[in-house]
């Protein structure tokens, strides 16, 4: 199972992709808010989003799995 992990600690501001969506390398799946910045989180491989493991507003640490890809 491929996963997309949080690049840094912060909170999930906005989820921009949807479950079932086919995404490509480099597509933004959600935006974190951290250090007063918007941090777009991009897919590091292509695939279909199976599920998100976080919701908007969740606080996440560095390396936490945000979404699973198939």
């Amino acid at each position, binding site marked *: 199972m491929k996963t997309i992990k949080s690049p*840094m*600690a912060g909170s999930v501001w906005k989820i921009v992709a949807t479950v079932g969506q086919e995404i490509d390398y480099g597509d933004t799946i959600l935006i974190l808010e951290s250090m*007063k910045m*918007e941090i777009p989180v991009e897919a590091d491989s292509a695939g279909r989003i199976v599920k998100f493991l976080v919701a908007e507003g969740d606080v996440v*640490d560095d390396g936490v799995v945000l979404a699973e890809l198939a």
Partner: protein
Amino acid sequence: MTNVYDKLDKKQAWAKAGGRNSPRAAKWLEGRMFVRDRIQALLDGEPEFEDGLLAGSEKDVPADAVVTVIGSVLGRKVAIIANDFTTKAGTWGYQTFLKITRFQELALQLKIPLIYLVDSAGARIDEQKQCFLGRRAWGNIWFNQVKISGAIPQICVLFGPSPAGAAYIPGLCETVIMVDKQATAYLGSPRMVHMAIGEEISEEDLGGARMHCAVSGLGDILVKSDAEAIEVTKRYLAFMPQSYLERPAVVADTGKASPPDLREVIPVNEKLPFDMKIVIDAIADDDSVLEHKALFAKEIVTSFVRIGGMGVGVVANNSKFKGGVLFNDSSDKAARFIWLCNAFSIPLLFLQDISGYMIGSSAEKAGIIRHGAKLLSAVCEATVPRITVLVRKAYGGGYLGMAGAPTQPDAMLALPTAMPALVGPETAINAIHFNHIQALPEAERAAFVAKKREEYAEDIDVFTAAADPFAVEAVVHPNELRKELIQRFRAYSLKTPVVYEKRNPIHPV
């Protein structure tokens, strides 16, 4: 009686052929260059001379698997130490080590760059008795590297393996160019890792070029082929002087054909990320950018560029990745780049868009203060011409780590989008008015905070900073920045570097 002249010809030809004619070498050479072809491609012509060609011939190992030559690259003399993988897998024996250390000493005496073309399976176990323990032993190679560091450029081009102790050759060079899917470096091989700790891992995942360039930070420039490695080495060398005693050559200004309108590139809204590499491209001479550690800690960019023909090292926050925040790796990356530029008289340009060093328990446990202090220390020690540009945010400790005014740059410039402050508006209002906000009825809080933030943002704009004569030397239109930098770097290059007299500072690591 043997004709000595025939003997010489025969022995030289045999030594020069290395192991290239063996059946195994033919397959290995598919997609790779033979050691002497690599040297030939790097040099302007033939090597000017070679030492130790006949070393190892008594034990039937051509040149003892290493080629040491002096030659010229783009008209400048360099010393080359190159492993021959077709001979005993490029391993080190006794003569190999003598040849390598002799050439290190020679390069230092001549004050010319030393280039290691590495492709070696490491130490030769059957020669360890002579080579491992004594005062004259393999370890002298690293002893010499440390002695040489900062005096002459030491570049490692990793074409193949460099395992175990040999991995410290790239470890101790200031710049490591690695060929993707060929170069590897690790202390323990996959087999040894499996035996010692039970981990199953491929050679590529354990110590491949891509891993080192993107994750460990050992590699600086990832290339696709032997030929590209050599081209990049030449481009890199052009930014370097022959030694710390000289300044790098200034070339003709190739100009800037069609710069983008930087007003369209830099968002005024400080929360929005943008790609700082566009700004770097806009101020650099056309086709002059050579990025160092492009795949590692991307939140900070370190690049050699030419500005008006002068080589400059750029250190820039890139909010496109991790908000441009400074982490351990980004601090290390920038610190080492600054040490490199300062050692070889390469002026420095800092482009600030920094909301700070990373905070939080993970960052603190990982030692963000130690790593942050390393960057501060490198910045404060740098005596080369140094200009800092406030592009956008410039908050807190990040402002200092990125060469803020108190670290004594030659010039502090600001774009009109700059926002220098101890903290940004959100944090500031929460801190200053915390009790007042808490006392307000719930319904009135948001409006109060928004109003105060706006006032604060106005107060920390760059025009306020410029009114203080010590905060910035000039506020510059982004589209005029390149011209301003050319003129200032030309002027500041006239200064004599300050040298502090002491043995060594105690660097934070």
